[in-house]
């Protein structure tokens, strides 16, 4: 049977992709992002060694538009091309999907009353593509494994509740544990920590809250599941409501987990956070 070996939570931002592609690892303002990824990357590639990753994220009008905007959407195709977000495609390989696992998850989640939009075409944007190279170095060895992308609406309100994302994670755990092949799975969630991109409050940052969020996600995620979208927006800026996505990853793990790595810094417009958690088994 398949099993979850661990989880990763990470910020995502176009700036991360820009820094990665320009190899800015020795620029003082970017060094912490590169150095802060090393321990998580080693764990992912050498210890966790996933056969597949399920990645919760949000799309930024690159796959979906407001003509039809899904609350939950899963990618089930064999091939997952990279999106051109308006400033050219990144020089990285396309992703492989995992149709068999993705359809198994779809059947299991729908049986559990999570009614998904199922996508045979899914272009992947910086929601996945900005943090993942830091954790896998695809230019050296390609992507380490196929992925199952899972998009959550956090850009057009009403967005799902944090508790709904938490329950989605728990339902994903059940789905993975009932998959008949013997696979090692890492569940990842990406979403911006404190930031605001709209109105006169543009640039709002709250590193104290971001760090409190990382503490609670590890030790008391139920407290985070109880918060409303407005609570998140007040504390971390409107666009930080993306943090509810992290609850899906945490909901897929056991109550007690081992922390492998944690990194945080906030140089400019948003907090860059990274958390790697391992299942104790």
């Amino acid at each position, binding site marked *: 049977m398949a099993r979850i070996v661990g989880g990763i939570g990470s910020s995502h931002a176009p700036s991360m992709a820009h820094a990665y592609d320009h190899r800015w690892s020795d620029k003082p303002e970017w060094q912490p992002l590169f150095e802060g990824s090393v321990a998580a990357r080693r764990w992912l590639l050498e210890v966790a060694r996933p056969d597949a990753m399920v990645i919760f994220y949000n799309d930024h009008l690159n796959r979906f538009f407001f003509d039809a905007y899904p609350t939950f959407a899963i990618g089930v195709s064999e091939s997952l091309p990279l999106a051109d977000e308006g400033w050219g495609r990144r020089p990285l390989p396309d992703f492989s999907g995992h149709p068999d696992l993705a359809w198994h998850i779809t059947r299991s989640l729908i049986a559990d009353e999570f009614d998904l939009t199922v996508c045979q075409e899914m272009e992947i944007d910086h929601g996945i593509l900005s943090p993942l190279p830091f954790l896998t170095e695809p230019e050296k060895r390609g992507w380490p494994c196929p992925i199952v992308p899972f998009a959550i609406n956090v850009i057009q309100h009403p967005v799902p509740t944090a508790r709904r994302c938490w329950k989605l994670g728990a339902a994903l755990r059940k789905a993975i544990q009932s998959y008949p092949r013997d696979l090692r799975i890492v569940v990842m969630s990406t979403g911006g920590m404190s930031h605001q991109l*709209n109105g006169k409050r543009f640039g709002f940052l709250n590193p104290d809250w971001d760090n409190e969020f990382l503490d609670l996600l590890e030790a008391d995620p139920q407290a985070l599941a109880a918060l409303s979208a407005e609570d998140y927006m007040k504390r971390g800026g409107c666009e930080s409501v993306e943090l509810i996505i992290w609850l899906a990853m945490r909901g897929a793990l056991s109550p007690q987990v081992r922390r492998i790595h944690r990194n945080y810094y906030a140089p400019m417009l948003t907090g860059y956070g990274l958390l790697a958690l391992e299942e104790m088994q």
Partner: protein
Amino acid sequence: MTEPQDPLAPPNSNVFDGQKGMRGYRINKLAQSMRHPENREAFLADERGYMAKLGLSAQEQELVLRRDWYGLQAAGGNQYALVKLGGALGINLVQQGAQMRGETVEQFLKTRKRS
């Protein structure tokens, strides 16, 4: 938990909800179309003509021509779309944000702690 005292917090922010999604539909459609290089070229060659084809109202077109990012958001523009429009026009997110705050880019950068 940390509770910042901030008079600009929601509901005073431009939270993007269904109502804005409907009001700003044409603005967002214009902005999202900038994902394709041929659309960027057509738009830059004739902004008014391109916008008219997509059905933007005269007021919406004025907001775009004035590069009024605050006004575009208030009219229902979604920032993830507007950043694509900015990209086509050579205007980045920091320039857009500084304008929303009523600051120059230099003034805005002074508010940032660069670690």
